[in-house]
């Protein structure tokens, strides 16, 4: 069936990717990142970044408001838990649907402009959503206290079959509780599905048209394409990915707060995509993992850990090195991330994936390096 077919190269990439994701608890151990809470975030933010890249990487439209869809997905999922059932599937489906509708409206309005004006419009809509969640929409979002499960939730479907338990319930899938490692594997499977669909989009004529829009939108019009519905479809798809990621955040921790929609969260996914490689399949995933790793692990390093790490250096130099490097870890983790970002953008404008490609080209000397869709710039 055409639905499940991939080219041989894509099938190989998918198999390798699946292997990497499923064995994550093993290979993250040496980095101290193999606890379920963080691995869940690795999977979830990878989905967010993959979806964002379908818009930014293929179509060239730089959205600065995608966190709004993440937030909408989270709120929808928590409401699904509260009103219907603790099962994760209805929550995910509803979240994808609602965030898709939300993206349709915002995309329809924002795509009337391109370039910087489009970015500003999406930023404005996202900030508007964020502020509304704190003010007039409090009945839906529960404002500053965040939307949470309570002991009085109706949960119509669940309670039709079972009686109310003593404590707060956790999300489940067909009766299996999704927490810890099972929660991670659930997110991992959803990530693989999301990755597979992104591969289909990249290889399809539709994906080629999106690249055409990024490359020369005017030529697309004179070639007979109505470009706006193409860009809008890409926008809605990426909004749905964001909603899916938001719902998974709620599955792993049934709580939705407005801060998830703040502009810093929108900026974060832009950084992930550019850091990893705009327009590549794997790049945004690597970017997401790197940033989440820095945020969660690097930020917990302190002088004690550094002191042990630099043990092999003789004493007088040792203290100096520890003193200097301690500024770059712990609370200073953003300094390191910022430097890394600057270095990547200056020396590898195609992101980490361009570095991978250059190294690959060194090994295959003679064949010219294959330049991908690696332009870091919004559509004009």
């Amino acid at each position, binding site marked *: 069936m055409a639905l499940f077919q991939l080219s041989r190269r894509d099938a190989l990439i998918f198999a390798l990717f699946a292997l990497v994701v499923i064995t994550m608890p093993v290979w993250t151990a040496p980095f101290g990142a193999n606890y379920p809470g963080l691995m869940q975030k690795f999977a979830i933010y990878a989905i967010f970044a993959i979806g964002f890249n379908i818009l930014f990487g293929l179509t060239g439209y730089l959205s600065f408001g995608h966190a709004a869809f993440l937030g909408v997905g989270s709120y929808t999922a928590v409401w699904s838990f509260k009103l219907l059932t603790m099962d994760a599937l209805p929550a995910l489906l509803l979240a994808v649907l609602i965030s898709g509708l939300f993206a349709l409206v915002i995309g329809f309005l924002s795509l009337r402009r391109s370039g910087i004006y489009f970015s500003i419009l999406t930023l404005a809509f996202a900030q508007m959503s964020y502020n509304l969640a704190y003010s007039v929409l409090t009945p839906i979002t529960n404002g500053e206290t965040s939307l949470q499960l309570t002991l009085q939730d109706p949960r119509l479907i669940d309670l039709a079959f079972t009686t109310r338990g003593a404590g707060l319930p956790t999300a489940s899938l067909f009766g299996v509780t999704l927490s810890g490692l099972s929660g991670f594997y659930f997110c991992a499977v959803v990530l693989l599905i999301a990755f597979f669909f992104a591969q289909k989009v990249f290889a*399809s004529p539709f994906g*080629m048209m999106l690249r055409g829009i990024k490359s020369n939108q005017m030529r697309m019009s004179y070639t007979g394409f109505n470009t706006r519905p193409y860009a809008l479809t890409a926008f809605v798809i990426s909004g749905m990915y964001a909603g899916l990621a938001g719902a998974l955040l709620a599955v792993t921790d049934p709580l939705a707060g407005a801060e998830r929609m703040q502009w810093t969260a929108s900026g974060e996914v832009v950084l992930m995509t550019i850091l990893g490689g705009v327009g590549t399949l794997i790049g945004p995933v690597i970017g997401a993992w790197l940033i989440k790793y820095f945020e969660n692990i690097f930020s917990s390093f302190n002088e004690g850990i550094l002191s042990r790490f630099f043990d092999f250096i003789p004493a007088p130099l040792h203290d100096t090195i520890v003193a200097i490097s301690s500024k770059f870890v712990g609370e200073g983790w953003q300094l390191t991330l910022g430097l890394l970002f600057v270095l990547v953008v200056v020396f590898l404008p195609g992101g980490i994936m361009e570095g991978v490609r250059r190294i690959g080209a060194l090994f295959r000397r003679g064949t010219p390096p294959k330049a991908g869709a690696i332009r870091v710039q919004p559509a004009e």
Partner: protein
Amino acid sequence: MTTTERNVVLHVDDVSKNFGGLHALSDIDLEVEQGKTHAIIGPNGAGKSTLLNVIIGRLAPTSGAVVFDGQVLTGKKPHQINQLGVARVFQTPEIFPDLTVLQNVMVPAFAKRDGAFRVNVLRSVDREAALRDEAEAILEDVGLADRRLSHAGALSRGDKRRMELAMCLIQHPRLLLLDEPTAGMSRHDTNTTIDLLQKIKARGMTKVIIEHDMHVVFSLADKISVLSGGRIIAEGLPDEVRGNIKVQEAYLGGAHRVEAVH
């Protein structure tokens, strides 16, 4: 002769275009016959590109209308005009620099097959063998077959022009608008392009061509309109226009004869 007998496909009807106080085009009437090559010549600033832009829907005329095959083009969007069978080669090549040469030619083929908008995420470009074969055949025609996997942005200007022509030809347009298709080409490439355009003329494609190179114009044109100061000052068969003293004055300031350029 009546219109039906002459089979006019493109009708520019009393078109004027003003930019503020500047009359770029004044009362232009133009009839292009099916299968013919109609050249528009004239000095710089005569309004040739403006006329082409009005036909293709890039500029809205101040008054008048453009009718193609019974359909009013004026007011339609560029993609709608293309879907009616009108393609255009631009003065500066408009291509997809980030895609490969082959992809550049395949994209218009999708527009022809699938229409202005279609979400087909479940198909794979790799499996579109028929379209790819057709694109490769056309690249062979324009002499770019060996560059088909190169990045289009890396092509020379002349090669970009030939690729843009291939992008139009794969759509089998019923009307092809060419804005100086050989500008910036070597003499050899110019002759190759003339041969190619003569070949597609045999297939019955109607063409409107703007050109400075008189060698190209007299090699290809069935009919010539001379534009000067936004007005058509002469129109006729190549030989008639060649001998027209008014043309020589407008076009060359009376300093040379058109033959001298030829």
